[in-house]
């Protein structure tokens, strides 16, 4: 990337525009093979930014997602601290990965999640009623999106309402990358301890309960397929992935519509664009923007680049989703484009398990929000609304609106 052939670009690199991937990705995409980047700890990794190459890496199980394997790239010391504490199944390789994931797949089946839609609509409408009753201005992240996504996933796990504020705050701290590692580590420990107590309590009498944790205790823990600790880590993953990510995507989706009024008009005139609009916002923002890190388990060639066993690889889904070969004019937010081949939920065996739920939640929000509040607009000058920048999950700290 740099003019000097002996220097490497650093990863991650800052965004020039808070709502678009770093411009360097476009330059990388024009070069053959992979780029080498330098990580914060001085190590190197191979960076893939083209759609086909990213899918090739993520679809190849000779690349491992297990961060404890030497050579796995490190994003930051703070991120390491969290990864060390939580060996969740998303960081396992086959066959352990499949065994764990399959304990959960039925929970997020299309038909099962589809059946949750009326409940999600009712929660969202209730939260909207409360917000409208209070009157403008409002902060959509705090007043609508975090409460919605928290209530949905907490309902699935039967985590008490009174604790939503607690896990929202710990999740926020957990995704910080550029802070003292003790901060995300302590946040992670607090959630794990909380869920440890909850699982212990639930295990006393799980029979006849409707929640996912009770089901896993009966179906997996009691017969010895899953340990207590593994269930705690699984619950933590679901709780965290279930609310923080989706709430961020909602906020960014609203931001995209409010700053692209032509697209909002399109959606208003033709509600059948809703599903496509949701896919486009997933593509456009690719909120888990540093994913996905891998390490080669053997020598593998991708796009003409030989990756040696033990070398780290970053297959950037944010690059793939902005590759002009896969999406024409990728920097344009265009809800009419065909976008559903995006890799915002990643690709390969680790692709997001909860994506059907995220889609339904997003569809509910964007089917309802602008219809119920047609005059919704930013409450502050647009340039004051800032992206979360270097968080592990891209989003908005606040989204002040009025109507």
């Amino acid at each position, binding site marked *: 990337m740099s003019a000097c052939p002996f220097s490497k670009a650093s990863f991650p690199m800052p965004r020039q525009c808070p709502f678009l991937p770093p411009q360097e990705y476009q330059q990388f995409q024009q070069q053959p093979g992979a780029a080498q980047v330098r990580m914060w700890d001085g190590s190197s990794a191979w960076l893939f930014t083209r759609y086909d190459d990213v899918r090739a890496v993520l679809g190849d199980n000779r690349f491992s997602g297990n961060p404890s394997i030497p050579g796995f790239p490190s994003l930051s010391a703070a991120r390491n601290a969290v990864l060390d504490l939580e060996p969740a199944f998303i960081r396992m390789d086959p066959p352990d990965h499949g065994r764990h*994931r399959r304990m959960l797949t*039925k929970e997020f*089946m*299309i038909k099962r999640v589809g059946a949750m839609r009326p409940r999600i609509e009712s929660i969202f409408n209730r939260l909207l009623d409360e917000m409208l009753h209070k009157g403008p201005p409002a902060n959509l992240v705090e007043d609508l999106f975090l409460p919605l996504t928290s209530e949905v996933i907490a309902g699935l796990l039967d985590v008490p309402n009174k604790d939503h504020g607690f896990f929202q705050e710990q999740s926020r701290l957990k995704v910080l990358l550029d802070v003292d590692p003790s901060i995300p580590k302590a946040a992670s420990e607090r959630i794990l301890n909380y869920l440890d107590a909850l699982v212990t309590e639930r295990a006393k009498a799980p029979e006849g309960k409707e929640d996912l944790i009770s089901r896993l205790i009966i179906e997996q823990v009691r017969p010895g397929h899953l340990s207590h600790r593994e269930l705690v880590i699984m619950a933590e993953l679901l709780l965290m992935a279930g609310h923080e990510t989706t709430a961020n995507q909602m906020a960014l989706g609203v931001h995209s519509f409010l700053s692209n009024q032509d697209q909002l008009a399109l959606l208003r005139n033709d509600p059948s664009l809703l599903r496509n609009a949701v896919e486009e916002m997933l593509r456009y923002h690719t909120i888990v923007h540093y994913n996905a890190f891998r390490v080669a388990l053997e020598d593998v060639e991708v796009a003409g680049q030989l990756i040696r066993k033990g070398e780290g690889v970053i297959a950037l889904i944010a690059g793939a989703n902005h590759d002009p070969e896969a999406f024409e004019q990728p920097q344009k937010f265009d809800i009419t484009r065909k976008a559903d081949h995006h890799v915002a939920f990643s690709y*390969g065996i680790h*692709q997001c398990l909860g*994506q*059907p739920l995220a889609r339904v939640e997003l569809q509910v929000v964007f089917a309802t929000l602008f219809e119920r509040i047609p005059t919704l607009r930013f409450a502050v000058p647009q340039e004051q609304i800032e992206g979360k920048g270097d968080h592990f999950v891209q989003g908005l700290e606040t989204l002040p609106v009025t109507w």
Partner: protein
Amino acid sequence: MSNNNYILRVTVDENLCVGAGLCVLSSSDVFDQRDEDGVVKLLQEYPDQASYEKVLGAARKCPSKAIKVEQVNGDAP
């Protein structure tokens, strides 16, 4: 996809399936998920021609490459 000179045969590998559900979103008349574990269930080995584009899209999108679509000559049995 509308020419009549070939037919498509779909096969699924249940062991590879990771239950992402994209195939059901693409074409729910061809793919479903097993109630007990969310694993892909093939409803039509020889889908209607009208579904070809969606079925091919499902195979391309499947994150674990559990769906194979092959072109076969002759008529569906």
